[in-house]
């Protein structure tokens, strides 16, 4: 039996990515997958229908027709409830699901007996890195955040000593030095900015130095590392000291890029309105936590606003803007994930397996994922 794999076209506004690109399809076909693609699925990411056909995919004109035939449907963004409607009962569905934010979606998937996997739930182990969409999308977000900031601000990033005077370099503050934060540090450094970073996990100090940025330390002895390399919620004393420290540095910064997330929770508010007001007019905040509510009190997810002369960018889907490469990375992640889940005979669903178990959201009508099922 050949596994029928279907790629849906994204429907969300501003989403330009595609779940699998022709390159991956070529390899998956060789491994015994039959791939169906909704017409035009890749066009906004720079992959034409023709390329898909050449890679061995069958073009299907509507999502409806596609879903009817498919054993497994892949997609980038969480589906709308209507999209779930279309899916075949008991089929397999893979996407970035963010189940904790979408309980009704999860219910619906369970009702339809769909076996669904959340790409965002894949454990962040060394072994799973090649399927880790959070890492790859964070990489893009960190890079893009700096470009957005540099393109928005009314200043240069690099220092320049010219006949028309000396241009001071931009001061960039990155809050939260996870994957996105480190990439933001590295990119801002490349462009010539003076970069500082802050994180609650002290072990990232070395990592921040390793990309050429300065690390700001909170003078309290508390380790912010939660399980699995993620951050935990901090004590009040720590929070206060942190706020003071960040205040001092924010008011001197031209660009602030907060990236702090705590898994499964709303993002912590790290930048208050007063702190925004203390910044120079013309400064820029790119809030990478926008989708989870934002690290800045004034952030409007999905919007760019100007408050106290400071531009606050709450873009909630930065990876989509690098649609070509973002799709390439996603596609590689999904390809590896698919190959992990199944062999030519079909899905194996080894529930012993950490990766499979960790990313499974619904199966046989039940909600499996811990955080969500709570």
């Amino acid at each position, binding site marked *: 039996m050949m596994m029928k794999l279907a790629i849906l076209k994204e429907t969300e506004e501003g989403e330009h990515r595609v779940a699998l690109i022709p390159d991956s399809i070529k390899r998956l076909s060789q491994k015994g997958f039959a791939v169906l693609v909704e017409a035009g699925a890749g066009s906004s990411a720079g992959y034409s229908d023709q390329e898909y056909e050449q890679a061995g995919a069958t073009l299907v004109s509507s999502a409806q027709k596609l879903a009817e035939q498919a054993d497994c449907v892949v997609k980038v963004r969480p589906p709308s409830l209507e999209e779930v409607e279309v899916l075949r009962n008991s089929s397999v569905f893979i996407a970035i699901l963010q189940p904790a934010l979408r309980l009704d979606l999860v219910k619906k998937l369970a009702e339809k007996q769909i076996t669904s996997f959340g790409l965002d739930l894949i454990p962040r182990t*060394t072994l799973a890195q090649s399927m880790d969409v959070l890492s790859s999308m964070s990489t893009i977000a960190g890079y893009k955040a700096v470009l957005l900031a540099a393109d928005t601000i009314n200043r240069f990033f690099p220092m320049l000593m010219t006949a028309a005077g000396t241009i001071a370099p931009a001061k960039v503050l990155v809050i939260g030095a996870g994957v996105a934060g*480190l*990439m933001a540090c590295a990119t801002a450094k*490349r462009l010539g900015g003076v970069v500082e970073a802050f994180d609650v996990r002290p072990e990232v100090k*070395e*990592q921040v*130095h*390793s*990309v050429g940025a300065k690390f700001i330390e909170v003078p309290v002895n508390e380790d912010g590392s939660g399980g699995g390399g993620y951050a935990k919620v901090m004590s009040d004393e720590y929070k206060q000291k942190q706020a003071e420290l960040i205040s001092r540095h924010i008011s001197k910064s031209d660009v602030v890029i907060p990236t702090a997330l705590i898994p499964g929770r709303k993002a912590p508010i790290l930048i208050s309105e007063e702190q925004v007001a203390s910044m120079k007019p013309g400064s820029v905040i790119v809030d990478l936590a926008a989708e989870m509510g934002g690290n800045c009190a004034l952030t409007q997810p999905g919007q760019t606003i100007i408050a106290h002369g400071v531009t606050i960018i709450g873009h909630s889907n930065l990876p989509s803007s690098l649609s070509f490469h973002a799709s390439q990375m996603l596609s590689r992640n999904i390809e590896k994930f698919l190959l992990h889940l199944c062999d030519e005979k079909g899905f194996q669903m080894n529930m012993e397996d950490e990766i499979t178990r960790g990313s499974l959201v619904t199966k046989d009508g039940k909600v499996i994922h811990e955080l969500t099922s709570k």
Partner: protein
Amino acid sequence: MSQHIINLIYLLAATLFMIGIKYLSSPDTAKKGNFLSMIGMGAAIGATLAAPEINGFTLIIGGIIIGTVIGAYIAIKVKMTAMPQMVGLLNGCGGAASALVGLAEFQGNSTGFTPFTLLTLLLSLIIGGLTFTGSLMAYAKLQGLIPSRPVTYRGQQAINGIIVLATVALSWLVFRDSTNILAISGVLVFSLGLGVLAVIPIGGADMPVIICLLNAYSGLAVSMTGFALSNNALIITGSLVGASGIFLTKIMCDAMNRSLANVLFSAFGKVDESAAATGEIPTGTMKGYEVEDVATILANAGSLIIVPGYGMAAAQAQHATRELADYLGEQGVEVRYAIHPVAGRMPGHMNVLLAEADVSYDQLFAMEDINDDFAATDVVLVIGANDVVNPAAKTNPNSPIYGMPVLDVEKARTVIVLKRSLNVGFAGIENELFYMDNTRMLFGDARSSLQKLLAALKK
């Protein structure tokens, strides 16, 4: 030939020896140096044969012919890899010759020695004798004729002590009566024994140092013979060899970061530990290596693959890495970089840093493009990488990283790993690469190690 002319020729020979050693300090002139040294030796031998004292030639010519045939045969037959033990063996011959000359002198001229002559004669006997057997033991250990591991037993130190004392006591007897053949033979026998006992507790890996030291001893023996015979050529040449041998021994010990005492006596009192400590580690010669050794390996490499990891980033060693790579490239080494997809702590970490250091994109290879090339590569330089070069991912199903593709660095001829310690990396697991036969660890901060390597290469 008058003694004066002979002495002048001796002086010439000594000068040629010195020039020969001087020329050995550069590969370009080394061969010439060896020839000059040969000429010196030839001249000295020729002059001696022309000396008035010498009038029976049969034995001499016979001896020279036999010696030449044997010497030439073994020198030509020996495999390149067996060179160190061969040098040891030859050295033993030299030591034996000194001891025999001393013995002959005792026989020929049994009275009328001044105390100084007697002292030097005894020394040439003792040093020559122990050089002989010590060299034979070193040879046997390296050649695998006897086990190369340190041989220790209970009471070893006591026994050695007793033999030393006995030798001293017998020497005293000879000193008082230089015709006491028994005592003389005793001294010889005990010094032969000393040579054996001094070398057996030393491990095979340390044999090159021992050979070097014994080389110095044979020089000393020659010098002592020279004093005994009032022959300046022997004095000078012997001390030349002695000093250079001792110096070389010191350099080699420094390179291993150990003291000579540690080399000579490390086995004592470690009878129990050593067995335990070797546990997992295979034939344990791969302790820490030093900059000079690693530089030598790099200098002689034809192809090099650099594997950077998080340690390079943490040490901010990207510039130092490029400098070293560029220098080796200029010297004709083929240099490439192998970038593991998850090296570092963020995707593309290595790319960002190497681009900063202006490493050309053409030199960077992704894992899948370069993994097959390791087997045909002379040297891999692992700079602060750990998990991404851990063979456990391929061989150990119980490892948490089993199944992750890793760089096949261990397939290369030689693997050099720059790290600060044997500490684990991000995944927190041991790495058996560090204990493999073809791996050399260079401990220290990656940046400073690289800088030292470059300085050593440029010397």
